[in-house]
């Protein structure tokens, strides 16, 4: 079971969290103005990186807050968690965290 650091509550076991998919995707302001392909890309296309991946988590069985996390998908290690709306931390990319679309 993973340990995840909620930016509001601290370190908690994975059971308290739900996964929220890729982070830093903003719903378009005016979807009606988008063509079908752009809208489809927003809806369905994800980078699905192998390596360092920014994703959303929610402390659903805790404070209820959504937040973002940087997780290395090859090791399951969380390298950082941060509040929604704040920029992605600039972490040094190591060999194991160099993202590749594989």
């Amino acid at each position, binding site marked *: 079971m*993973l340990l995840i650091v909620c930016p509001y509550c601290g370190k908690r*076991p994975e059971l308290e969290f*739900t996964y929220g998919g890729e982070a830093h995707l903003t*719903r378009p302001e*005016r*979807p*009606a103005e988008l063509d*079908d392909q752009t809208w489809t890309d927003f809806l369905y296309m994800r980078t699905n990186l192998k390596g360092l991946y920014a994703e959303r988590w929610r402390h659903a069985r805790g404070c209820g807050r*959504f937040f973002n996390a940087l997780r290395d998908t090859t090791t*399951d290690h969380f390298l950082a968690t941060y509040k929604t709306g704040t920029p992605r931390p600039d972490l040094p990319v190591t060999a194991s965290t160099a993202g590749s679309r594989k």
Partner: protein
Amino acid sequence: MSSENTHGAPSNGPGAGHGTASGHATAVHHASDGHDAVHHAPQRSHDGNLRVANGGRIDRSRALQFTFDGRHYTGFAGDTLASALLANGVHLVGRSFKYHRPRGILAAGSEEPSALVTVSRDAYRVTPNLRATQVELYDGLTAISQNRWPSLQRDVGRVNDLLSPFFPAGFYYKTFMWPKKAWHSLYEPFIRRAAGLGEAPTLPDPDRYAQRYAHCDVLVVGSGPAGIAAALAAADAGARVMLCDESTEFGGSLLGDVAARIDGETGTDWVAKSIATLQANPRVTLLPRTTAFGYFPHNLIGLNERLTDHLPAPAVGQTRERLWQVRATSVVLAAGAIERPLVFPGNDRPGIMLAGAAQIYLNRYGVQVGTRVVIVTAADGAYQTALDLQASGVTVLAIADVRAAAGGPLPTAARRAGIDVLTGSTVLGTEGDLRVNHIALGKVKDGVVSPGQTFDCDAVLMSGGFTPAVHLFSQSRGKLDWSDHLKSFVPGRSAENERSAGACRGVFGLAEALSDGTAAGAAAAPGPSRLTRQFAVDVEICGDDAYLGALPAPTTKPKYKSFVDWQHDVTVKDLNLATREGFQSIEHVKRYTTTGMATDQGKTSNLNAMAIVAQKLDIALPKVGLTTFRMPYTPVSFGSFAGISRGDLFDPVRTTPTHEWATAKGAVFENVGLWKRARYFPRGSEDMHAAVARECVAVRNACGIFDASTLGKIEVVGADAAEFMNRLYINSWTNLGVGRSRYGILCRDDGFIYDDGVVARIAPDRFHVTTTTGGAPRVLAMMEDYRQTEWPDLKVWLTSTTEQWSVIAVQGPNSRQVLEGLVEGIDLSAAAMPHMSVVKGRICGVPTLLFRVSFTGELGFEVNVPADYGAAVWEAIYAAGQKHGMVEYGTETMHVLRAEKGYIIVGQDTDGTVTPDDGGLTWAIGKTKADFVGKRSLERPSMKAANRKQLVGLRTKDPKVVLDEGAQVAAKAGQTPPMELIGHVTSSYASSVLGYSIALALVAGGRARMGQTLYIPMPNGDLEVEVTAPVFYDPTGARING
């Protein structure tokens, strides 16, 4: 100590003829157990006197009686079942998985592949497939052997061994292919009966199991020299330490080592002193009989602690096993190493075992595993076994060393002790049916094998060196490196805060293991160590030689099988066949031959199997690949995982405030998520059909009362509440007045219906949103997602109020009359309180939020009262309703009534591919809104296609026929598979009110098919149906507005 104890009770009779293989079979009748059994004439050496007079960790003053296959034996406190059987001369303890070959005890620990037994206390407490090497003896223990019939000595399944040419690797795949139908009826049941080991118990497990969570700074797994040294070093640094070991006693390899001296003391004395030091430290937790079975991410380790299996009579209610989930800041793995068997023809007979195991049986349990032994080895360690055995009086006939030369201190000592050392040896074969009685050695020179000496013996001890136990390290996702020198995989880069120490990382020497453990423990502890312990060690150097794969064999076909995997009966021949048939990856070879796939997970076999495959393919071993080490390390009982989550505690149950009332009324309940909901209320001898028919008619003609408390309820509050609802739901909310409600639909951004429910505006800044029963958590989660991450600027707050309100639906033409006498200050008239209105007031003296709303199509109300008042208000309404013909009804009637009106149930009539338009709900969409969640997707061409599946009604030609929900819909009659299908039935009921059956269905282009005849293909032919509008009852809605 009495001699009687060492010899076993006289009533045991000749005892242990089992293991001998002299061939002089005589029938011996045992009055004590009533079984006829054939036993071989005992040799003098097998009369039970295989226990040495002194030494070991057993208590010779405490004799314990036990039975194995119904025969009585005696052992001592401190014995395992295996050591006690061996002390009685019993080597034959089981039959193998596939060929039913007689099998003995190979090892002395958890790696044992062969000696699997069933131990039972009573009919309920039966545990199969226990390793006899780990079963602690207690007085009265009852064990039986497995996979044999009618008896272990004479086993009918043995014929499989003679037929073995017909059972090569992949036999099932090749043989049971035809005819196809016979697989389920004939082959599979037969194979399942023929194969396998112990039988799973069928009665419920009456024992208690506990679970515990713990945190520590340093978890040390394994209590051999490295583990104890690590625990001492970490404790010295002030760390919170947990030390666990799968064995009864701490000490690991030191418990079987009488030669070593640490700081001038024997190994066991040093262990006792060290454990006492740890025990005195309040920051140290010691867990014996505790297996670390799984290494989970972020240093979560699963431990299984066995608390009562060693007790003769556990107290009633005493916890049998405890599952620990330990979150350790750092972990020290000191799991030790597993001795590697040698692979040669006939290497699986009872009496052939690992040399290190024989040493443990002698030094820890005081048991000689034979009287005349031959040792076959590729490493120096077995020489210590030879010396120990010889010192105890065992005749060591020879040490056949596979190596061309053996010149270390131990071989030198063995030669000096007069033991014949034959270097450059191999094994050509062994003899002995139920126990080995002969071994034929071979000589290897320049790669050519020629016959060597032969010996009559009663035990063959083998050693191919040691394999580091890297299982937990590998489970932690650490990277394994191949060591050519050690001929083993060793821990490489760690993935967690974890260190391996001692033999489990290939550090085999005692002095080296102690200092390795000390370093690991000190490094794992958060603070600097206050002490730097150093240990003065006196022990012979063993070296770290090891052997891989099959021993050299002559080119002629061997007479006997060479086993690689004892538990799954995989031989060298099977592995060679697999490579010949084209399998190259060890993962494929493993699945084809099943090598390493038994309950022991190939602890003794995997590396030999890989080496044989690599050699056959002529590639380096690491290139063959490495199979995955999976948890659990050794099997863990289901009870331990289940803990208290069984019976009533298996899953939480949610009940409504009227649950007790409904139970008293004889309601039949159904599970809806975690909720218990009354499904129907049978009266007299009514079945569900009759009860539902009566309930439906009563609601339509008079009135009914229904508990709708399980509906999800969310309060959406704030200055921007209406804006929030506008953005989220497809409906428009701006113009919904206070005191009014509306049927709302929630889509996801993909445009498909996600949930629905009535939404009331109870203040300008406050909405009372209801959701489906099952959908409440996910709707709230979706609302929170948008609120927090997309529109954080909106002033809106969300609160789940599902459990705060009890919701009492009062439905039917008489419902107004029923409520009129109960409400205070509420005008229920149609003019004052029209359909879809909501008022705050009081009922029966308590506050209420009263909805005029209907999910039945009748005049109806939903009385919301604080949950604590739910039962009382319900009973008051029910009492008042009696003179108006009120009945209580359940979810089944609710379903029929709503289907008669064509109201959908999200999740039943929708399935995640249904748009609002597909469901006939376009009217609900707020037409003037620029955007809402899902709107853009609804504009995509495919979402507007005319042939999308649309909700329609179906009426069967035969009004009595009720369609199956989920049945397919076809446009053409008389099709055979593959059929062209255009939809499916989503809801179907017999309508007692209408007098015919009704169904809802999703049908391609359904709304353009009104009046068409379609076909429901069923096993007995097509059922004809007519497409109708989904509203069957009161299509104008006159009744609902009454």
